[in-house]
């Protein structure tokens, strides 16, 4: 009886070590110039970015560098000069994406590997991987519309609700 009890205790102890408290593994990805925490899902994003955060993060996402002080000052001036702030942000984004300096894949590169483009774009803007359903939806759009460009997709991501949160 004693032997059975001892064996049971050893078994339970072993099980508790093996399965009792599994530590959550935190992934750290090195993304472009900044180290970024990758979200497991979008439910963690609950705080809305300020306009200043939005512009400076957008700049970093598109140009892979921090926004220079003179640019930031001029961007603030331009934004103050337009009453409809949504419109101001849309024009600023439009300029960023079409500047020729944003690291944007070509249309050919996008269509050569649509799955990879979608995953890269989600990580770049949303700091997370897309779900299979999200990949499917976007893939259908890209493959079904030959005039949909990476620049337009980047603008849609930057204007989305999820991008306004962190």
């Amino acid at each position, binding site marked *: 009886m004693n032997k059975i009890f001892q064996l049971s205790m050893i078994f339970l102890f072993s099980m508790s070590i093996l399965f009792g408290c599994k530590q959550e593994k935190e992934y750290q990805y090195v993304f472009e110039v900044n180290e970024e925490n990758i979200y497991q899902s979008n439910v963690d994003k609950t705080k809305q970015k300020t306009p200043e955060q939005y512009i400076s993060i957008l700049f970093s996402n598109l140009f892979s560098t921090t926004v220079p002080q003179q640019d930031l000052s*001029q961007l603030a001036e331009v934004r*103050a*000069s337009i*009453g409809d702030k949504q*419109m101001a942000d849309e024009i600023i984004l439009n300029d960023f994406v079409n500047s020729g300096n944003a690291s944007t894949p070509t249309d050919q590169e996008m269509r050569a590997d649509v799955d990879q483009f979608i995953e890269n774009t989600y990580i770049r803007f949303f700091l997370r991987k897309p*779900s299979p359903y999200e990949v499917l939806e976007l893939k259908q759009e890209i493959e079904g519309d030959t005039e949909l460009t990476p620049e337009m997709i980047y603008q849609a991501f930057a204007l989305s609700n*999820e991008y306004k949160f962190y």
Partner: protein
Amino acid sequence: MKRRSFIKKAGLAAAGITGVPYILPTGRLFAATGSRVVNHVVYVLFAGGIRNQESVGQQFLMNQNASLPEGNVMNNMLTGAPPSGNLIHDPWAPVLNTPMMEHGTLFKEVEYKNGPTGHYNGHTVAMTGNYTETGLNLNINPDFPTIFEYYRKHSDPNESAMNAWWISEGLGPYPSLNYSQSANYGAQYGANYLRPQSILGNAGQSQLGNAVSYQPDDVDRINRIKNILDNNFAQAGEQLPGIQNTPENREQIKNFLLQKMEDTANGNLDFATPGNDPNLLTGDLINISAAWQVLDEFTPELTVINTTNLDVCHDDFSAYLYYLHRADYGIGWLWNKIQSHPVLANDTIMVCMPEHGRNLDRNNIVDANGLGAYDHTGDNNSRRVFTMIVGPDDKVVQGQVLGSPSNPVAESIDVVPTIAHILGFKDSVPSNLMPGRVLDEALI
């Protein structure tokens, strides 16, 4: 028909007749509130602090030294002989054949009765129709509703910000004047705000110069992808503070701005200067030139613009006269443009008023020509302004001059109710919000 049923149907029919908007012969749709004098008002805050002595007083340099000449440096707005000598302001030939005062009524002596004579205060009084004690240059929206909010809430049938514009020469506190903090009005009734000098100038060209105008199909593509992304995210971002255009209007304005930036870069914009010379532009003239582009493109019903360069008078009286002369040219140029526009001509009233005056006594600063400068610290002279109302000869009394230094005939707070009357919504606004009076003497 049963009596109860008859009464009910008759009542509904009567409500329909009185409540449903109707279409005017001009094609304009609006609810039956009040009759209009005209359908467009351009309100020019001839601002920066202008003394009546150098403007409607036409005293030129006489106040500096009695031996120096007097004369009219505002040859587009005012009738009067130019100075005979000492022409420090590099005169431009007038753009108008007859001065504007011949096309309307000049209230030569108007009082800015209460509150500090600061630029922001003066603008606030002029745009809300209420005196304010608010301190200088506070970057906050005014307490009382602005003329834009009255207009959009009580008049504009589509409640569209495309019909109301506030176009300012400066930034600082001025962007805050497109709507108030009033609980019953606010941003949803605000005006589109624009500071053209930033958009068309270095900042805009540097930061927005690569933006492209998308075709409607491409806008649809971007919105379609955005909608897919939004459907997979539970939260909607709070709306940004301030006015919001409809998506369609936003696209129109974006394309307009990008086109005007391109026109500016290529030297194709219509400038308010002699010979369309961009080298002669001042900040005020850039603002007036851009205001014309907005008027020409969108034909808004209510447009407010300002000048501010004249504030140089704090330390340079010669430059003040220079800017006074140029701002006058710009206003004449704008009036001339309006007269040749198919929609705006004969259906527009322009109102011009400085936000406040300047002191009677000089400060200690003397400019390169030995002329003394003036501040605006609230003495009686800095509370003296003028108001000019010009428009079609069957709507506005022509060539009339009212008031004198000993007989002020109006107040700064009177312009807002006057515009409300012109655009037909005065009676819809609660009377306690507009303490001023309608300047009926100017209207037929």
